[in-house]
């Protein structure tokens, strides 16, 4: 039968000939596993870096953002389910953009970085890896927006060519992961630590879903873990949930819940805690953790004030703010 075992993510799918992995896009043909969406993105956009969200990495710059079909998670609240929960044989729109074409296209559009995003780029790993090498050769940066459900060995290799990552830590609870995403927590925590160990600039996002993962004691434990394992300067983004896909029975996250979560995480020692998906919120902006000076004011994804010094310090007290600013 020539079954193969995919070693890329913790599922370690055992795939018979003519079948696909759980991600739908890694397909066994004749005992060989194909990365069927290599060079075949189904989404291409130019986004502000803040949309990823990456707030401490080249703020305000445009980033060429791509995704292919497929995902190795199956979140009930997925925002991109038409893309992520489809295989290459199901999706209508497929572009032809091999790594050389992709880098040239991004450059032509005036972007200095490429984001592998929207669905989970873990499932188009080889495309990310090859494109990232070429992007570096062209003097560009690579950002990886992921749920972090990937085995350590492939991730370490990828980290050599990735400059920044935003990893979705969906909850600090394995039961939530199993019920809501079809994945497990520990590999995600391992991936976060790997990003940090490998020197990739890292930010973390936590989407707060009413009643499912908004418990303040869990948020405190998560923030403590982030501070201890990743560093208190690691930016944490609390993001607002909107009813979507198979989770339309819950309301959007109330603003007060996001406020309380932000305060809890800051009380636990994190220095840069943000609120996302609510335009104009105080928590969209960056403040100096020492004297409270407003450093970067954001309105939605736009920057309206920028006061950091050229080497990334607070202009009032000279406190260095971790990030990649130039």
């Amino acid at each position: 039968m020539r079954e193969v075992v995919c070693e890329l993510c913790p599922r370690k799918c055992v795939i018979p000939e003519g079948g696909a992995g759980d991600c739908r896009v890694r397909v066994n043909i004749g005992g060989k596993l194909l990365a069927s969406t290599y060079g075949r993105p189904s989404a291409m956009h130019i986004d502000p870096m803040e949309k990823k969200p990456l707030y401490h990495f080249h703020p305000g710059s445009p980033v060429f953002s791509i995704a292919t079909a497929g995902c190795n998670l199956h979140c009930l609240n997925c925002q991109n389910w038409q893309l992520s929960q489809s295989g290459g044989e199901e999706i209508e729109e497929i572009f032809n953009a091999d790594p050389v074409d992709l880098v040239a296209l991004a450059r032509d559009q005036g972007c200095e970085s490429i984001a592998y995003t929207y669905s989970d780029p873990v499932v188009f790993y080889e495309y990310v890896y090859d494109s990232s090498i070429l992007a570096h050769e062209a003097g560009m940066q690579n950002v990886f927006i992921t749920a972090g459900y990937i085995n350590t060995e492939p991730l370490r290799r990828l980290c050599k060519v990735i400059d920044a990552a935003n990893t979705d830590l969906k909850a600090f609870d394995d039961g939530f992961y199993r019920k809501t995403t079809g994945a497990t927590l520990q590999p995600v925590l391992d991936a976060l630590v790997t990003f940090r160990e490998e020197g990739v600039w890292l930010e973390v996002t936590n989407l707060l879903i009413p009643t499912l993962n908004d418990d303040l004691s869990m948020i405190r434990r998560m923030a403590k873990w982030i501070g201890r394992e990743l560093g208190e300067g690691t930016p944490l983004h609390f993001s607002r949930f909107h009813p979507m896909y198979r989770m339309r029975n819950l309301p959007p996250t109330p603003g007060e819940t996001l406020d309380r979560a932000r305060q809890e995480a800051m009380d636990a020692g994190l220095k840069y805690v943000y609120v996302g998906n609510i335009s104009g919120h105080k928590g969209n902006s960056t403040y100096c953790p020492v004297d409270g000076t407003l450093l970067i004011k954001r309105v939605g994804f736009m920057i309206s004030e920028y006061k950091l010094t050229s080497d990334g310090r607070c202009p009032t007290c000279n406190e260095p703010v971790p990030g990649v600013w130039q």
Partner: protein
Amino acid sequence: MISMLQAIRHWHSSDYRLVGLLSLTLVVIALFLGGQQETEMTGSSWRRIDMEIFQERLDSGKLSAHEAEWFHAAKPAELQLRKPGGTP
């Protein structure tokens, strides 16, 4: 509660055996479900896809035949982990 205790006092030995058997069955079911949860993330997942359309798209270049990294031929022990049928 009291009437329940009174009922238990009047049990015959066959009743105890029945209750014991039911309890054992529940324990076995719990162990089975617990074990299934532990292993469900490893090795069990694969999906059936429409190979006719997939092959058409490969042939037309709409999809890629690029060989993936990070896989190996399944060993006999790993085959035991695969669920028959696959998920559509």
